[in-house]
């Protein structure tokens, strides 16, 4: 089921975001990586290292351009891991 896969990825991402974010706020779908969590490109790279390892994926750099919210992020990873 797509929803549950989304939720599973969300939960894993939530842990990583909390670990790497500059600002600590509750993480929701519409939480903004830049404005709410204070990520800059370099901080994000640190987190992407973990994301790539945990999901065993290669995150395409050009996807960064359209990444704003936690939901964008989860959906991108869902797509890269093959969706189901």
């Amino acid at each position, binding site marked *: 089921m797509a929803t549950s896969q989304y939720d599973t990825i969300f939960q894993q991402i939530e842990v990583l975001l909390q670990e790497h974010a500059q600002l600590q706020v509750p993480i929701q779908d519409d939480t903004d990586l*830049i404005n709410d969590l204070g990520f800059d*490109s370099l901080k994000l790279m*640190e987190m992407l290292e973990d994301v*790539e390892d945990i999901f065993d994926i290669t995150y395409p750099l050009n996807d960064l351009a359209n*990444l704003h919210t936690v939901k964008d992020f989860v959906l991108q990873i869902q797509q890269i891991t093959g969706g189901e």
Partner: protein
Amino acid sequence: MNFITPTDSQIPLRKADFQNLAEALDYAAKGLSGFNFYDGRGKLHATLSYSKLQQEARVLARRLLSLQLERGARVAIVAETHPDFPRFFFACQYAGLTPVPLPASIHLGGHKAYIEQLRGLLEKSQASIAVALTDFFPYLLEASHGLELKVVGTPKTFDDLKETLIELQPLQAEETAYLQYTSGSTRFPRGVMVSEAAVMHNLAGITKDGIKVRQGDRCVSWLPYYHDMGLVGFVLAPLAAQMSVDYLATRDFAMRPRLWLSLMSANRGTISFGPPFGYELSSRRVRLDSAKPFDLSAWRVAGVGAETIQVEILDAFAEKLAPFGFDRKAFVASYGMAECSLAVSFAPIDQGIEIDEIDAEHLSAQHEALSVVGNIDQKTAVCRTKKLVNCGIPLPGHEIVIRDESGQTLADRKCGTIHVRGPSVMSGYFSAPAATERVLSADGWLNTGDIGYLDKGNLMITGREKDMIIINGRNFWPQDLEFHAEQQPEIRPGDASAISVVTDDGLETAVMVVQYREKDEQKKNELETRLARIIREEMGINCVIELVPAHTLPRTSSGKLSRAGTQRDYLNRQKEQEINRDTSNLPISAVG
């Protein structure tokens, strides 16, 4: 299956003594060395020997000629770390076209900003054709919309062109070898025109006199191809001296800095360069793991350049990696810029970093570098000192002078603007005669805008190009930050001043001081948040926003914003607040 190109080219070493880049490749192609490309997991994913590069570039050159572009027409190449970049770059060399590397660097949520940047560069360079790999192609296409380019495509688009039978006429000594857009202002990019003769002079200087290439040398690089150090230092110089290179894409290095050191270890790399930021990132992020030890004992040239060099960063790196065979004597400080092809001066190899410790107060008050050694009894006197790195003597054929504001040449250890003259200096900025005239005099002197002093021919840099902000190795012009602020309805032109300050941990932070008439706290908070967000989105960095009342920003006598004054005032306000609140987590010292 791919095998890496060997370190030994099996042909006699020639150090860039060629007429042009095409001739350099023709010679390298007789040997076995070449480029190797590693992925984000440290696995080899492609190799491109110089002989294969030569063949493929010549075929592609004949295909490009079918487009019947005028000689010297600009070919924009989104410069990803991938074999297609050197292939297109050298196809231009053979076809008599001018390659223009474009940035392949996207920031979080930065779609719009990247499109604007690409579009600006396509326009400014008056590119005739443009190419990007599949990943970046949609951006290139979007950026070129409505512009008059003959072809915008992926490599395949150009590989599908019909090969002509025209004899190839490579770019000659006086022709422009490439256009290098400086990493400066994104709104006002300047395209540095470097002639074949200039770049060959510089490559000879780098390989023969700077790093003194020898048999057995092998390069490793994660530097982007669209920067002078990545392009000239680690594509052209190795090729011109027939050395193999192992590449890691910049994004993969930023994500996994460990890979740099793993590659150096695995392939017995002897030469690698980076800005201080690269060394800092490595020593901060690399977790030492005895299960996967490094062997950095072959690393003989660990070059440092591109920004003001902070000794502490190099010390930390050397200390952390000494157990793995890293020898701090491998550090080689250098000074250079795209306007001088790449390199101006190198410190001597095998010596490590040489420090000149000077009296910081005297420097800022008298513009003179007074050595503290022997002048101050360090046990009793407390004096604020500054450790400056010796960047060595200029490459042969090049001269450096230090001038004051009126253009007078200054004596040894007197601080002023660094001017350079010599055969590696650019021909000018592309299609920008006024900008060229501002920095390049009729008798060939280049005003670098950097501040420093000489001591018996050795160059020390005390500050870099006026006002530039450097965060994580990337250069930002304050005008670009201020522009974004001034786009806001409540901010007028001249109400924003961007500067950089160094925090307690030695890292540089961008600060923008903005004049704002509103007293309502909620409105002020909203504006602060909005400006910080815009800067993050547009430039990919965190920026501290400080709102101040109208008429706070200091101006020069001619009414222009004084950024030096803004910086001084900002730091004073911070100090006052610190005293008031008795906290110490705020920036304390200014840069250069």
